[in-house]
């Protein structure tokens, strides 16, 4: 009964942030316009290699995130492609107005790369966790918002966004999680990835919840529920076509994300359903609260962000069909 998991087997757990570091290392070799900035978190963001290989293209800004965003905006003037690195909280909420005016409104080609997103950075607690960042970023006109699910995809996304002209928010995390997407994948911004086909329910997941969705789908199959699992790595622009196409078969949907229920992927999907195809939806997301200290597994359990929570949501939504 492990058909699905066999197709997407874990090739060895890794953290998504290391995928970012690997992608940046690759870009250092292939694109001389790529520059990197960090606000005193080189180790946490896995930017050591880039710094070592290209010291002239690496800028240690210190604990001054507002200045980092402004400097990144300035570096684009002259043709550079800046990648900024810090925790998701300090990448977004702390510097919202700098991103809004100097980057988004100014159409600057800055890649805001954010680690330690969501609850799963764990023990540091709510000051360092952020569950509002997708909402903050997706509301900015012109901003592309990406939340990758594993090491391979994060690496591929990091490389892909250098080729995309315009501001991008790339969100990834700290914990070691299954690495299950192909190492040689071509990352297409705004293009959903269909992971498993099904006809009873659509599960649309992003980030760390994608693996949980696959685990849930596997469990559901034991109960003769065939779930279609879609990896939405790009929350904006949303691949509306892929979602609507799936719903033609399944007629109900569960969205799953490591984010507040307000402002995240689920709300983007709900807007789409309201406009185009109103079918029942259930949300797997944090219920408008802050996080807290704990291990990643404890937190994902307490805040109902795991395969078990997805299965429960599937059961609820199928009753509403």
């Amino acid at each position, binding site marked *: 009964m492990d058909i699905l998991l066999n197709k997407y087997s874990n090739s060895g757990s890794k953290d998504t942030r290391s995928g970012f570091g690997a992608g940046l290392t690759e870009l250092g070799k292939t694109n001389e316009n790529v520059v990197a900035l960090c606000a005193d978190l080189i180790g946490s963001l896995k930017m050591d290699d880039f710094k070592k290989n290209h010291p002239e293209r690496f800028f240690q800004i210190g604990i001054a995130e507002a200045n980092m965003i402004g400097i990144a905006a300035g570096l684009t003037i002259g043709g550079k492609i800046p990648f900024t690195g810090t925790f998701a909280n300090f990448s977004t909420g702390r510097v919202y107005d700098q991103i809004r005016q100097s980057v988004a*409104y100014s159409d600057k080609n800055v890649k805001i790369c954010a680690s330690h997103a969501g609850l799963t950075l764990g023990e540091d607690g709510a000051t360092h966790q952020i569950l509002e960042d997708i909402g903050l970023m997706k509301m900015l006109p012109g901003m592309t918002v990406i939340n990758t699910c594993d090491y391979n995809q994060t690496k591929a996304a990091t490389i892909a966004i250098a080729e995309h002209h315009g501001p991008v928010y790339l969100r990834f995390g700290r914990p070691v999680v299954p690495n299950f997407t192909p190492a040689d994948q071509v990352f297409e911004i705004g293009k959903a990835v269909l992971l498993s086909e099904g006809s009873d329910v659509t599960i649309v997941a992003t980030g760390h919840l994608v693996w949980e969705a696959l685990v849930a789908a596997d469990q559901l199959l034991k109960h003769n529920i065939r779930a279609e699992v879609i990896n939405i790595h790009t929350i904006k622009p949303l691949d509306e076509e892929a979602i609507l196409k799936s719903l033609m078969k399944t007629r109900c949907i569960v969205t799953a994300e490591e984010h507040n229920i307000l402002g995240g992927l689920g709300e983007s999907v709900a807007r789409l359903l309201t406009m185009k195809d109103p079918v029942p939806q259930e949300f797997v997301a944090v219920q408008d609260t802050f996080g807290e200290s704990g291990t990643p597994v404890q937190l994902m359990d307490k805040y109902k962000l795991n395969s078990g929570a997805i299965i429960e949501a599937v059961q609820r939504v199928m009753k509403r069909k």
Partner: protein
Amino acid sequence: MVYFYRGKFFNLMKPTTQQLQSMVVQVRRDILRMVHAVNSGHPGGSLGCTEFMVALYQNIMDRKEGWDMDGRDEDIFFLSNGHISPVFYSVLARSGYFPIAELATFRHINSRLQGHPTTHEGLPGIRVASGSLGQGLSVAVGAALAKKLNNDKHLVFALLGDGELQEGQNWEALMYAAAYKVDNIIATVDLNGKQIDGATDEVLPMGDLVAKFKAFGWEVISIENGNDLQQVIDGLTHARSLTGAGKPVAVMLHTEMGNGVDYMMYSHAWHGKAPNDEQLQLAMMQNVIEELSDY
């Protein structure tokens, strides 16, 4: 080096100070007519920085003909205190970046001349949006770093308001630029001592700014009368000579808000207030030159 003056490009020869003095008056007229026409905008700081902006674009900066965002192989400028957009727009138009007639669209719907400067509408001459204060110096530092990476020996200029220095991001940028020897930047502070709610010394005293900038590792010079065109040209020329020596350069530019219009001077009242018909007429009478070319 190309100079655009009265609708013509001049190569090699810089305009004379006399010619620039006429342009200062013309720019003042533009500022006043622009804000009057829409009964909004910021004439006070604009008038205070008119000599600076004219000197910068017409004498100091080494600019290419035409416009591109990257600004390679030319000096570039960032306005951090974006609310003085009237003076920026007027000087850009009269330096050849866009048609002078377009000044009539200032703050109108569908205009490229937004209330505060933006790249969003594609107005030539603008390289970043400003208006929300305290962000321009960081952007200028970034552009200066890009110039170094590109082996471009040209300079980056920035103008900051004094009240704006109350925003903490400026001090992050000051610290960074000195620590990493960003010595291809000249940041000018418009020291008019006034902000919306009153004198800067009453709203939030900032103490000895020269000492603070020096303590942050900047080379600092002062221009005692920032409304004396020759002093501004001499001061900025001096500042230019100090670049490339391992330190970022700051210019403390002492100006009078509302300069050139007697009833606007020595007060913060005209920071963000437009003259009425009668007041405009009075201001125009105080700013007359032989060859007027109002838009």
